[in-house]
Structure formats: C-alpha cells, structure tokens
C-alpha cells in the first residue's frame, strides 16, 4: 500500500462515451497489485491550495475507489463509468497530469485451484476487475510483463475460463475483445437483446451446467450478485463476489464501508474485501 502522485499516461473515452480507461504510471503499485484489489483515487487536480482559505481539494472531498483493471509493466489501468461528479471530474483529467493515488488496497480474488471450471460473471463495469483476474488465470500469449499464475503454463488457454457479460444494451458490454485474446469463452446477454441473449446475465448463468467443481467469480450490481449467490448456493459452488460500499479511508480504519456478514456481523469492504465468499454475506 502506497500513496503516490501518479502520472496519467492515458485517459481514454471508450466507444460508449460514459466509459473510460485510465492508465497511470505507478510502478511500485503495479508490482504488488493482485486481481480484485483497488485504487483509492483523489480525482481533483493536484496542485497547491489557493489563498482565501478554500482548498481546491474540497470538491469532491473524498477519494473514489476503482478496481485495478490491468497491470502492464509500470502502468496500472482502471476502467470506469461516469456516474456522478467524481467520475465526471476524473474523465476530464488529461494525459501528463498527476493524480494522488493510494493502492493497491483490499483483499483480492482467491485464485482457483487447478482443474476448476472457472466461470466469471460481469455486470456492466464489473468486467474491470474480472479482466485482471482472467489475465492471471490465462495469461496472454505474448509475455508482456504479466505475471502468470504460479506454476502455470504460459500457453494461451491452458486454464480455460468462461466469462458471462451482461448489460442493459450492447454499448454496456465492454472488453469482449480483450477476453477473447485471453482465450476465454465469452457469452453475452443484454436486457434489450441488442447483443447476445436477451435478458439478465443471471438467466444466462442459470442455463449453464453447473457442477460442484465449478467456481464463480462475480462483479456487478448488488441485485445481480445476490442472484448469483443464490444460484451458487443451490449448486453448492464456491463463489466469490466483489462488493461496493461508499468509502472514506479505504484502508480499514474508519469502519465506514461495512456490509452485513453472518459471523462477525459486519465486515469492511475496503479491508476485509472487496472480494468476499458469497456464503459469508447477509444478502
């Protein structure tokens, strides 16, 4: 975990104009990042406070959490959706500017055992963290600084995975090409049927022949995760979900980002998560 001023290498609008991919030069963070971990970013421009007692850091006041989407040598990427003011301001930051970043934070995904049948399920922007996971599971063919899973063969497709991507419309389906390049099997569903199967991604999952040897990794909206947790439960499948909560510290200090869990009552998304075993959660 570090706090650094990271240079923006790229902040590129994706096809659908509400999604952006931001590349940060952050070598020390890149070296230790794991899939499922996140960055805590101050989206305001870095600069000296102004006179007059009002500091430019005040709006928005808090940092914003974003999953690590990709790590490539010294660069760390995030993939984000413009949602409110913070992400809007972030989308206006330009190449060459600096952002104050803390990371990597949180506990990531537990990597699958050998031979597991891996199913990734992404809702919308949920692809962000799952792509980094997929890279670890099935490293891309050209060795480009990606660290392959320990003891794993570098050849493409050695570890097979399926990814289900769901969204409202075709333009909400991100990263298909990227997952394809990793050799994954890709299934898409959209609510309006404009791409792939019409319906929810959880319906798509239900059509699957799920076995106890399967493992599910899911990231997306709460209702989706809840549904997936039910499916996993009924099939006795090990399932990990990445959750979101509003955060202040991001490092486990403030106890603000808790979710309800079965044993300890509350767990912190930032420190104990954001990835949880779906069984722990009180949905």
């Amino acid at each position, binding site marked *: 975990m*570090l706090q650094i001023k990271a240079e923006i290498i790229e902040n590129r609008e994706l096809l659908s104009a509400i999604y952006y991919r931001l590349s940060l030069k952050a070598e020390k963070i890149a070296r230790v990042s794991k899939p499922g971990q996140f960055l805590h970013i101050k989206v305001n421009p870095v600069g000296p406070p102004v006179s007059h007692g009002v500091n430019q850091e005040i709006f928005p*006041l*808090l940092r914003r959490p974003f999953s690590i989407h990709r790590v490539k040598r010294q660069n760390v990427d995030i993939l984000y959706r413009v949602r409110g003011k913070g992400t809007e301001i972030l989308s206006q930051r330009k190449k060459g500017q600096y952002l104050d970043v803390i990371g990597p934070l949180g506990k990531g995904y537990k990597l699958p055992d050998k031979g597991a049948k891996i199913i990734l399920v992404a809702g919308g922007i949920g692809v962000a963290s799952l792509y980094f996971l997929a890279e670890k599971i099935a490293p891309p063919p050209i060795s480009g600084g990606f660290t392959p899973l320990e003891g794993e063969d570098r050849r493409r497709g050695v570890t097979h995975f399926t990814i289900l991507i769901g969204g409202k419309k075709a333009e909400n389906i991100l990263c298909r090409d990227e997952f394809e390049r990793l050799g994954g099997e890709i299934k898409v569903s959209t609510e309006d049927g404009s791409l792939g199967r019409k319906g929810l991604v959880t319906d798509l999952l239900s059509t699957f022949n799920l076995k106890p040897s399967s493992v599910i990794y899911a990231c997306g909206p709460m209702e989706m995760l809840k549904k997936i947790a039910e499916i996993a439960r009924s099939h006795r499948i090990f399932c990990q979900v990445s959750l979101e*909560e509003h955060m202040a*510290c991001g490092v486990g*200090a403030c*106890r603000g980002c*808790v979710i309800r869990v079965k044993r300890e009552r509350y767990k912190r998304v930032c420190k104990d998560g954001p990835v949880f075993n779906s069984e722990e959660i009180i949905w």
Partner: protein
Amino acid sequence: MKKINLKVKLGQRIILKNPVVLESGCFGYGEEYRDLIDINRVGAIVTKTITLKPRAGNLPPRLVETAAGLLNSIGLANVGIELFLKEKLPYLKKFSTPVIVSIAGEGSEEYLKLVQILNKEKIAGIELNISCPNIKKNLVIAQDEVETFNLVKAVRKKTELPLLVKLSPNVTDITRIAKSAEKAGADILSLVNTFSAMGIDSETGSPRLGGVVGGLSGPAIKPIALRMVWQVRKATSLPIIGAGGILSCNDALEFIIAGANAVGLGTAIFVNPHAYQEIITGLKKYLFRKAIYDVNELVGSLHEN
C-alpha cells in the same frame, strides 16, 4: 538559519514534537495506516474511541459525502477495551509519539471502569468522548454542564493520567461546557466532535445513513469549529486541541491563531493521509517567513480591534 520550534506542551505532561494530532476515529488503531503515515513524525495520536464491550457499530450505510463534508454514522464500532489492550495498543506503544486513548461509556460507571483499566497502562493520556448519552437521563453528557462536570470530576478522582475532554459542537454555548470540564479537573480540551446532521435520498424517501442521524465533519464545518475554539480560548486557560475541517496548513494556522495549542486531523486523513506532513512543513515555512520561530507564540494571537 534560526531553528523553528514546533514543540508544544499540552498541560504538564504531554509533549508533542509538533502540534499535529491525529483525531479519534479517523486513524483507527494506527496499524491500518502503517504504510502511509509515519507515526513517529506526528505530534500525537488519539485512538478510535474504546468502550468496555466490543461494539459492532451502526447499520450501514455509514458514510455519505455532503457539500465539502462527510457525514458518518459509525456508531463507535470498536473491539472493546480487552482486545484493544491485547492486540492494538502494543503496536502504538512502539513509537515515540504520545498515544491518547479515547474512551466512552454508557453511564459514568463504564467510564470509571475503563479508566481504572487504563491506569495500569503506559499511555500519554485519556480522552473522554462525552458525546455519548447518559443512559439514565437519556441526555448527551457533552450537551449538559452538570453532567459534564460530574463525569469529569468522577474520572479525575480515579486517575493521575492527563485527562482530555472532547467537546461536542451541538450546544448553545460551548464555553459553559468547557468551563465545567475545567472546573472538574480536565487537563486539556479537545474540540470539536462532529455536528449532528442527516441526509435524505429523495428517490427512495429514506435516510442516507442506516443510523438516520450521523455526525458531520470536514471543511464544511470549519468556520463554526473555528469560532468555538476562539470562544473557548477566551473562556478557559486550558490547552486546546482544535479540530474541525482542517485539511491544509492554512486551516491549521487559523485554528492556532484562534487559540488552539495543537490541531487535530480527522477527515483530512481520509482525504490525504500525507496531510500531516504537508501541514508540518507548511507551519515551519510560515513561521520562518513571519520570523516567529516558535509556534507557541502564534497560539491565540488573533488581532481583534
């Protein structure tokens, strides 16, 4: 180049390397910020408020960002005094920085029990978070002069440790509470805690916080907190740790000039864990530029006509 003195004494026995204090609840048990904050460089730290029994805290959501502010309803989630002493305090004692333990109880008996337990520990002081209700009278202690006096007095009798009292801003006249605490034997005053506040999600018609009402902190409250520090400075002669919306060195200077002997960072830690260092460096530069050389000379130096 003349040396700049940032050293500050709070009462007889607490000596800070510099006037920057990390406030209760925003620095957890210290460990969480292990990689980001060098505790040895900070003036003092105040732990998350500890209670007798572990507390799970309030229903989520617990955090809402407001205009230049943070609204929280953590609900004093903490591990309880037993685990705190066993698992958390040892880490903090490794540093050369004074550790002040914040405590709260439901009723004065709990406060006294906590104090008796802490008396055996090597800590720099005890901070009474009196923003909890008196369960018997269903009234927040810090909102009542008599309650404050009684509690502080009772605790004072039981401990020789430096005693800090953390005041609530949700009062008509904070100087009256400050004076009660002083009369009852407090060594240091800490102000302010958060402002009672709320937010509503107009889409759902529900409160934004699980706990409905929470505490507002951050830059939004700074002008009010500053006024309170200034008033308390004039009303008592106790050392003051001033807090409320301090993010930058400039903010810290305002509090010191208003009368704070040390400044507390709460929300600032979340916004920028490195703020403490920027403030320390900024203070040095300011003092040098103004040829003041000793931060203590700045305390309460406001020019009033």
